[in-house]
């Protein structure tokens, strides 16, 4: 039986169609995924992402522990700031990707993918053994994502104008502990926005208040097309334990400096770097009709398979199909996607495709 979030009945009331995602019955859309997608690009949308895992890391050695556990370096961030990082296995494969927030108390709050919570907690607990640190899962907290250029304007409906003003002063990838709960200026859509961790009662009150104020909910369907347009990887699809961050367009998230920081997976990544990274994750689009989908093969002019689509979809902001693909070896100048045994020419585009409302890929008129 799938789990639900504390907002299930409110989603139902809002007209949600549900889908089983990582063992949770989650809204996939509330009528039209495309409308919800465009609403977030142009205005604001409210996502329930309470299926995600929140883990608090506390103790005198919390910083030392996370500098050991994570591929990115929490030593780079001061309290109130957030950092995106991979958690690696000893082979350098990605166990999960996460956002870690440094709290004013010296503790940290980590947000994990729903499907990876249990695996992550085991991996982190193993790595934590030598450190004076406690790991506390927070199933008592839910998570809302208020996303879009209109997110700032929507804050006051729940937080009131004084607090809304303070929150709108937050810079990207910073956070604030408020009287209601924890608010970070982060998201997974390529737009401005906030992620808000609240206890169950406040979570329900916040969701209802925003809906009554005219903010409309958006489902996981729109969340997926928004993140793909933004060029953000989806764990389990674009990367997993068998791919390294260097093969996943995430080298920028691995802090090799300082050289003496022995993070989990470092030796494997260094060996991979010395031997030469074998695969790359690239962005691509279809200039013609058709839809890229995960698991489609890409072939070169001789019909040789050169890679595989890892994420693909129609892009509502663009009106054509985009994707991410893992390429073996050198990326050829020309390639074709095999869609139902027919070859469709693809074009490469370094992601993102859309960011902060700006279209960064040539549209139909431009090609």
């Amino acid at each position, binding site marked *: 039986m799938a789990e639900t979030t504390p907002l299930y009945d409110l989603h139902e009331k809002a007209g949600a*169609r549900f889908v089983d995602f990582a063992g949770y019955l989650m809204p*996939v859309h509330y009528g*039209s995924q*495309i409308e919800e997608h465009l609403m977030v690009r142009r205005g604001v949308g409210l996502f329930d992402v309470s299926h995600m895992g929140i883990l608090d890391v506390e103790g005198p050695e919390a910083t030392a522990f996370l500098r050991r556990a994570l591929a990115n370096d929490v030593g780079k961030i001061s309290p109130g700031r957030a950092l995106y990082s991979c958690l690696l296995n000893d082979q350098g494969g990605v166990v999960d990707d996460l956002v870690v927030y440094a709290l004013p108390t010296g503790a940290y709050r980590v947000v994990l993918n729903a499907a990876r919570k249990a695996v992550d907690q085991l991996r982190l607990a193993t790595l934590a053994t030598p450190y004076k640190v406690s790991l506390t899962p927070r199933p008592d907290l839910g998570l809302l994502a208020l996303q879009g250029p209109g997110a700032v304007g929507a804050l006051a409906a729940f937080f009131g104008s004084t607090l809304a003003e303070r929150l709108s002063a937050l810079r990207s990838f910073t956070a604030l502990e408020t009287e209601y709960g924890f608010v970070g200026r982060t998201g997974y859509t390529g737009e401005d926005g906030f992620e808000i961790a609240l206890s169950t009662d406040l979570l329900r009150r916040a969701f209802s208040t925003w809906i009554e104020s005219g903010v409309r909910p958006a489902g996981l369907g729109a969340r997926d*097309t928004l993140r793909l347009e933004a060029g953000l990887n989806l764990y389990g699809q674009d990367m997993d334990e068998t791919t390294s961050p260097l093969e996943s367009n995430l080298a920028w998230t691995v802090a090799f400096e300082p050289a003496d920081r022995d993070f989990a997976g470092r030796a494997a990544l260094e060996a991979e770097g010395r031997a030469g990274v074998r695969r790359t994750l690239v962005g691509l689009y279809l200039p013609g009709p*058709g*839809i890229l989908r995960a698991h489609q093969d890409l072939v070169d002019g001789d019909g040789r398979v050169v890679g595989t689509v890892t994420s693909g*979809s129609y892009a509502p902001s663009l009106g054509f199909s985009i994707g991410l693909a893992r390429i073996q070896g050198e990326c050829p100048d020309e390639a074709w996607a095999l869609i139902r045994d027919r070859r469709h020419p693809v074009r490469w585009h370094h992601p993102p495709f859309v960011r902060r409302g700006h279209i960064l890929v040539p549209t139909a008129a431009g090609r």
Partner: protein
Amino acid sequence: MSHDHPNDLLYTSSHEWVRREANGEITLGVTYHAQEALGDLVYAETYPVGKRLEAGDTCAVVESVKAASDVYAPVAGTLLAGNPVLAKTPEIINQDPYGEGWLVRIRMEAGSDLAGLLDAAAYERLLAEGH
């Protein structure tokens, strides 16, 4: 029967609707239930005119934002026409699944009939059972 699945059409368990036309021809589309389950349709492709179809062969593909779905010929025949407006406006399938959003026209092979198909009541019973 409900407004969603008209009484004058026949249905398949794979969620196509069939309208019997003159001269042994049928028109085929996807049901109200199917387009709603698929969500916003963003691409549709009908197979080439003249293609010989066995019952159960794919004759069109419809794709929503989320997924691709094959559309099957309910009887053997020849593909006579694909709806020409689908290439530019696949969303017409959501808006008008039984009218402007039709998919293909098929000429049934001599001797094939529509006896195995469901009427609206039987189709809705199927949906109620959770298929």
